[in-house]
């Protein structure tokens, strides 16, 4: 068998608890990484990681080896994350209804830059600051763009595999990743070069969330 993880999952299907532990050992950190950058909270990402592996366990009896294990795993991860973010968005909508004008800009990167841009001329950014800026730039991407970027960057998944995990066509993934990376470039390059706040990003989110 080409994919050893498929073999492990088949053993899980047959009731092998050690195989499940081994799969968790191999993938828990990777799922956690994607989820943490997707939802922006370590605690929440841990809860969702547990949910992912619980679903893997529940789905073991219906597992068929017709795709790479990692693709199957991140399909589940994508579902879990999407559901969680949708639920959170609904709750936030309820909470914020009637209080829409209470705060300023909703863009975290812009808020960050409004606070710090006056103190950051074109200078070398330290590691923590750079990490925060990159993280905030990632947060300006919509959920689907972020997921595609994380799977492509950190899992090294091909467009075809990402398409399968996110239930899209490879061409749609190509467009999605292209928009995501252009958004990141637009957010990050001016800031890196000049320390100036970048222009507002193009309208990300609404149209792709609807798609």
């Amino acid at each position, binding site marked *: 068998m080409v994919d050893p993880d498929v073999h492990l999952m088949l053993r899980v299907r047959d009731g092998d608890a050690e195989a499940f532990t081994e799969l*968790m050992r191999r993938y828990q950190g990777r799922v956690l990484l994607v989820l943490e950058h997707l939802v922006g909270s370590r605690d929440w990402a841990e809860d969702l990681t547990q949910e992912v592996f619980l679903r893997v366990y529940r789905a073991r009896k219906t597992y068929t080896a017709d795709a790479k294990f990692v693709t199957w795993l991140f399909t589940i991860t994508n579902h879990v994350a999407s559901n969680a973010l949708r639920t959170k968005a609904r709750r936030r909508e309820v909470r914020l209804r009637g209080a829409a004008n209470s705060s300023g800009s909703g863009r975290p990167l812009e808020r960050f830059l409004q606070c710090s841009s006056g103190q950051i001329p074109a200078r070398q950014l330290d590691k923590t600051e750079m990490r925060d800026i990159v993280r905030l730039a990632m947060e300006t991407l919509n959920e689907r763009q972020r997921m595609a970027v994380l799977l492509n960057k950190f899992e090294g998944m091909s467009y075809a595999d990402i398409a399968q995990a996110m239930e899209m066509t490879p061409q749609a993934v190509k467009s999605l990743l292209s928009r995501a990376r252009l958004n990141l470039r637009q957010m990050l390059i001016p800031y890196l070069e000049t320390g100036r706040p970048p222009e507002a990003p193009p309208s990300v989110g609404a149209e792709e969330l609807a798609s």
Partner: protein
Amino acid sequence: MDAPQPPKITDEDLIAYLDGELEDAACRWIEKLLMTDPAIRRRLQELERTWELLEKLDEPVADDRLTRSTLEMVAVEAAREVQETSPLQGRRFWVRWLLVLGSLLAAAGLGVAVGWFLTDDPDRQLLEDLPLLENLDCYRQIDDFQFLKGLQERMLFQEDQSDEG
């Protein structure tokens, strides 16, 4: 007539090139453009630089606590699955035992009935002798059994019934 313009390279193509998602011919075309067009080269470098910046993001490490906690959740799930399937087994168990119990009760009932027929029951004897007992006083006043049989043969005991009819 102007010569046909070569197709314009898009950012989507450049990104797919960086991701190794283009076919060989398209790669060669982009590489040729990169050698001749500094603007495209700059765009590509910016995209590449931005992509590399993502490595600055934290890489969370799953600790033993999370692993243990997840395995505990899975163990609870496994126990729940067992509980969900055991009622079915329990139902079969009780059906089987009810059949056994029913059979035992039926056998016991049969035994009681047979015993009732086979044993001497004083009440049963009394019931059988009831017609005799009802006329016992009359019978005692007549000493001769043959005389009684003669009366019966002459159907004198049916007189009341014929009168009533």
